[in-house]
Structures are given as C-alpha cells and as structure tokens.
C-alpha cells in the first residue's frame, strides 16, 4: 500500500503509523461532558467503505495526514495534511459518506 504524502510523495505504508478514526472530536480540555470524552477516547467509526482516518508519516516528514481510504479495497481517494484542515471542514468528510 502506498500513501501519497503531500510533502514526500508516494511512500510505502511501512513509513506510516496509523492513528485511527479521524472523525473523533476532542472535547474542550476543561469540558466535564464525560459522554463526549468517552466517545472521543473509546468509540470509533468503523465503516466498510470510505474511512476518514489519520496517519502519521512517522518514517518521513512526521506530519499527520488525513487520509480517506476504502476499507474494503484499500484504495485511497484523498490525502491532506491534518494541520490546517479545521477551517476546510475536512474533518467531517466521512460523515457524508452515505
């Protein structure tokens, strides 16, 4: 499997570390909403199909990437830096998957 790092170009999956479901929202640090905290720490979207997920290019530039990857075929349809995606709304991408 190859992931095309926006900085380094296409690289073998061996250079990357999977950081899981990219749809999770970390509650405000001071939040006392335990349901939200629990959901953030423990609950994952686990779709059969396109999945919005976070990978670190740990064996390369070490940036974190938001990758949309199909869990049935491993086909990757988009890769972008996580940093800076708050504004673009990429975080919600997988929720439109229906």
């Amino acid at each position, binding site marked *: 499997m190859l992931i095309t790092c926006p*900085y380094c170009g296409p690289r073998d999956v061996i250079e990357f570390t999977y950081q899981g479901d990219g749809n999770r929202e970390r509650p405000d640090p001071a939040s006392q909403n335990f349901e939200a905290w629990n959901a953030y720490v423990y609950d994952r979207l686990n779709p059969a199909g396109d999945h919005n997920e976070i990978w670190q290019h740990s*064996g390369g530039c*070490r940036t974190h990437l938001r990758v949309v990857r199909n869990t049935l075929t491993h086909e990757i349809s988009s890769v972008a830096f996580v940093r800076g995606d708050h504004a673009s709304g990429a975080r919600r991408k997988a929720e439109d998957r229906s």
Partner: protein
Amino acid sequence: MVERQSPLEPELHIGSHGNFEHGIEILLTETRPGSIVQLAAWPGEEKNLMTAIRTVTGLALPDGAGGGLSDGVKSVFGFAPGKFTVADDAEGLAAAFAEAVTPAIGTVTDLSHGRTVIRIAGPKAEWVLAKFFAIDFALTAFPVGAGRSTAHHDVFAQIQRTGADQFDIYVFRSFARSFWKALCHASEEVGYEVQ
C-alpha cells in the same frame, strides 16, 4: 577544541572491500560536518526562514518540497513542511542561526553531535541505497540537491543527493555504527572502498 569522536570508529576500515577485484563501484565516507542544525519555521514564516538561510549560508533554497542544494562546504535541504536541515564543514551554525532566525520566524535546534553523515558515492550508489530505502533514487525522481526523509525499519534517515552519483545520509548517531555496517555489507556485492 576537543575533537569529536566518530561513532563509526571501530568499524571504519579504510581500504577496498568486498567484490572489488572487478572494480570499485561504491565509495563510503563519513563526512563529519562541523555543524548540523535543524531549522523549523512557524506556519507562514517559511519564506523568512529561507531568507535567513541564505543570509547565513549564502545558499538560495529552491521552492518546493524536499528542495535543497549544496556548495560542497555547506548543504541545505527541506525534509518536512517548513523544516530544513543545514550542514556546514565549519562549526558554529547554531550560533549563527540563533541570530538570524528570530523567535517570530521559527526555531533552531543544534544536531551537530546527534546526526552522523555517511556519504555514499559511485555508479552503484542508487543500487545499494535501494536495498534499504523504499524511495525512488532515479535522478529524475530525486534530483541533485534535493532531500528526502525516510527510514529503514528503526533507522530514520534524511538523505540529500549531493551529486549525480552521490548521496549524504543523515542518521541518528546511536544507530550510525549499525547502519554503517549494514551499508558496508550491502556494498560488498559491487566492491567498495572506505575513504
């Protein structure tokens, strides 16, 4: 000044090795630059950092990911967004950059001791490096001057192409001896010389 100890020392055997009777196709050296620094810009400050690099080193970085160049004494290349490695035969880069890179631009981290630079040169340099790293070493994909961050299992490496047949590999000092031995081993097939 007290001389720095090379981590390779006991395994650095000057001379020709491996299948060299058919010709030497690899040269291996430790370049031992006097200083190595890592520079990192805050978002939006990349251009200012590149300007600072030019001010200090005289090297004008090309735009683009992994861009870099070397004048044979000083070398610079990008290895991550807004991040650059700079090396100089002379010591003192960190101090020089501490002036030029203001806190508003980014940070300077001295890695002069922390990274070991191994130079591999010769017609089979791409061939030998391909045994370790899953990146495309063809000149078209990896032009002279450019830098790459990659890894061979546990060993992180930044690689700068400093010639058509020449690469400088920056590895963590603690891994350098192990990596050096592996590199020598892998070069035996084509014959190599340690200088």
